[in-house]
């Protein structure tokens, strides 16, 4: 996920164009080697064991290595070794940018150093982010300068980013943005208890169909009942996992059924996070005061 963030940084600094960014991210997608693949390649796990861990990952908020250790397929030491193979994600990005002549090695290296400085990333933080630690990324990069949002919604946003990667799109990029004022489709769900939350995802037709198709594992091409339902069900599943996490941390919450509304105006007290995927952009809306969110 780091590549998406560093890539957007390069884009915002005018060091590469949007087309160049899409091009290198596509290249990176092709060469990315998944944790499980490395484990099989090294003869540490069988493909069916990897499959079992992937299935479990869809139900619980744990990393591949943690589950593999719990199931007795890997030792802590083996996990550490495999992580070190994955940490080099930014090298693929560097390779792609340099191979295509978009940047020189020096330019890349200096931009990376500037980036680390701008976000005050320690070597340790940077390594954590490289190895896929979403919490560190959300804390240090995504919510930088938005301490209030980090405090209220940091764990929710981290889990959302992970569920986007698990269920929808590995190339997800999230950023805090201006508040959304209207939505073609708004799936919302209220979480009850302390802290209560208003949660919603807002999308146009294209992004709704993309999320619905990925989540349903079917190619949905029309905004029909199934597509609308799959869009809502992704939010419902994510919130369910959030409730399980909160319960594990000692806070019991419940939630209302999700609902979908069309062509609505949204106002009041909430924050908006723009979620960019390979096929379109949509928005995540969150409020710690559900009664202060108006949907009309």
């Amino acid at each position: 996920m780091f590549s998406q963030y560093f890539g957007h940084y390069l884009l915002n600094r005018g060091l590469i164009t949007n087309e160049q960014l899409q091009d290198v991210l596509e290249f990176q997608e092709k060469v990315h080697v998944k944790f499980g693949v490395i484990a099989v390649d090294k003869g540490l796990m069988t493909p069916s064991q990897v499959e079992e861990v992937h299935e479990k990952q869809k139900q619980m908020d744990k990393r591949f290595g943690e589950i593999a250790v719990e199931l007795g397929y890997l030792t802590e030491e083996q996990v550490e070794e495999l992580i070190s193979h994955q940490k080099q994600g930014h090298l693929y990005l560097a390779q792609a940018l340099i191979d295509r002549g978009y940047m020189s090695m020096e330019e890349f290296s200096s931009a990376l150093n500037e980036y680390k400085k701008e976000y005050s990333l320690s070597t340790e933080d940077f390594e954590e982010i490289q190895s896929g630690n979403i919490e560190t990324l959300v804390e240090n990069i995504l919510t930088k300068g938005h301490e209030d949002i980090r405090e209220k919604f940091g764990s929710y946003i981290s889990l959302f980013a992970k569920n986007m990667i698990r269920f929808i799109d590995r190339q997800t990029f999230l950023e805090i943005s201006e508040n959304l004022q209207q939505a073609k489709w708004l799936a919302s769900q209220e979480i009850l208890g302390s802290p209560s939350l208003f949660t919603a995802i807002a999308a146009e037709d294209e992004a709704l169909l993309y999320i619905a198709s990925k989540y349903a594992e079917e190619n949905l091409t029309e905004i029909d009942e199934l597509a609308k339902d799959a869009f809502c069900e992704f939010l419902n599943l994510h919130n369910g996992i959030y409730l399980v996490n909160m319960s594990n941390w000692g806070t019991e919450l419940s939630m209302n059924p999700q609902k979908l509304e069309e062509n609505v105006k949204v106002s009041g007290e909430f924050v908006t996070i723009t979620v960019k995927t390979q096929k379109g952009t949509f928005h995540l809306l969150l409020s710690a005061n559900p009664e202060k969110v108006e949907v009309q």
Partner: protein
Amino acid sequence: MDKKTVLICDDSLLMRKKLREALNPFNFEAFYEAANGVAAVEQAEKYKPSLVFLDIVMPEKDGIEALKEIKAISPETKVVMVSSVGTSSKLKEALKHGAYDFIQKPIQSDTLASIVEKALKEG
């Protein structure tokens, strides 16, 4: 073995579809569907299904309430709760009210299969 029937209750059309597809190989005599807790109780009373798959977070009447009523109407029916909210408190509550088992969403076909096989074997 007697012919078995199954009721699938979930407010999500996608989940009902996925469950039905996953249950197809088990040759149930009849499938019934409901999209909320009220309809689930009505169908359970009418058809007395062998097995019910019941979501928890639903409009009209939630799954825990529906579970209590279904077990009162049809004690022989085995009710499997299916939810994304697999917290230990929900699990305990469901078992206390007579749930047969609990499946965390998204459903894994091998988990589902082992629960169905166990339920059918016990008759």
